[in-house]
């Protein structure tokens, strides 16, 4: 999948830029469980964001969200980290997001499948899906 969990980089000189916000990561609880496992969230909690390196080589922060009365995490925000004042390369970021989603779905496992995600993205003609 070419997506790997890495330590979050120092943010000096980078501009955290929200790309995608999910308020209900536990709508299907197996997705919440995937993030808890992948980022050791039972131990880390809200102390630090998660981070992955995407196929472009760029890092992306996963900022987990908590909501009173709900299991943690209740949500997650994916942030790009473009340098300084550089505009975001949107096409590259979208290809990376698609790769992160495929990595997530593969990690969640059956009955969810990367093939189902790719088929859905192709059905709706998302450019990143080719």
């Amino acid at each position, binding site marked *: 999948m070419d997506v790997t969990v890495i330590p979050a980089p120092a943010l000096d000189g980078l501009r955290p830029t929200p790309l*995608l*916000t*999910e*308020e*209900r*990561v*536990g*709508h*299907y609880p197996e*997705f*919440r469980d995937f993030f808890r496992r992948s980022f050791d969230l039972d131990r880390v909690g809200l102390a630090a964001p998660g981070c992955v390196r995407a196929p472009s080589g760029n890092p992306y922060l996963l900022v987990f969200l908590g909501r009173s009365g709900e299991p943690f995490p209740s949500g*997650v925000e*994916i942030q790009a980290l473009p340098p300084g004042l550089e505009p975001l390369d949107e096409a590259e970021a*979208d290809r990376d*997001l*698609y790769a992160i*989603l495929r990595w*997530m*779905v593969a990690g969640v496992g059956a*009955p*969810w*499948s990367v*093939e*189902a*995600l790719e*088929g*859905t*993205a192709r*059905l*709706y*003609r*998302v450019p990143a899906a080719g």
Partner: protein
Amino acid sequence: MTIAVPDPARADWPYTARFARVNGRRMAHVDEGSGAPVLLLHGNPAWGYLYRDVIPPLLAAGRRVVVPDMIGFGLSEKPRSEHAHSLDGHISNLVALVRQLDLRDATFVCHDWGGPTGFGCALTEPGRVAALAIMSTWAWPSPPAAFHDAIFPWRMMHAPLVGPWLLGTHGALAGRGMYLSVVDRARFRDRAQAAYEAALPDPADRLLTWVWPRWIPLDDGVRATARFAWLEAGLRASCWPTLLVWGREDEVFDAATFAARFKALIPHAEGPHLVRGRHFLQEDSGPEIAALLLEFLTRNGV
């Protein structure tokens, strides 16, 4: 924030937008004509524009026509938080509007999520209802169709993070999704698709397009199950004149399953009358739907 009618819709949407406050939100609606009111209710991801071919014949026949844009769609306010949306909240929005407009002897025309919300409003305000018309929707707690139960494409479309990406960033439902759910796709693409897409111009505007699928009770014990059971029981006990109109080519809420189940739930319902159409049958058969409605209402003295 969309308040003006989107440019692609102006040519065939001449109506003045009116605005009501419901549950603290701005709800747009059309309110034209006089006489016995007909309330035209849309679902996901449409707005009142879906009924543009239904409205003129109703007005010409001397009906008052009320067409709200659901909060989150069309010209109505679009809350930015998923937690602003719930099935009960949307039912309550309609209840508020119906009371503010003091609709009486109204015919509720219910399509897609205009079904569960419209039925909920009708059962809350039964004294204001004269008749029901039901199109391509459902009102029971079990998964609506095998289509909705499958991972590909339905559950995947609204899965965590996939929903905000596919339906938000890429606007898949108001564009390609509706396109796939009409019969005459070329006509829809040339005539209407831009009007739906323009009403949801930015990713955050499209929030409800992935939130509504999450309110379908697909698994045991999930939210809204009790509300759908209440809707089913209420409709079973109802005695309003009821008309079923279905798209012949509807392969999601197929007539053989869904119209038949409504017929079993409401045995006195007329129909189903099959017209050309998939899920968004108003796009292919608006005038025919209006004619069926008028004939039904006239014959029933509504």
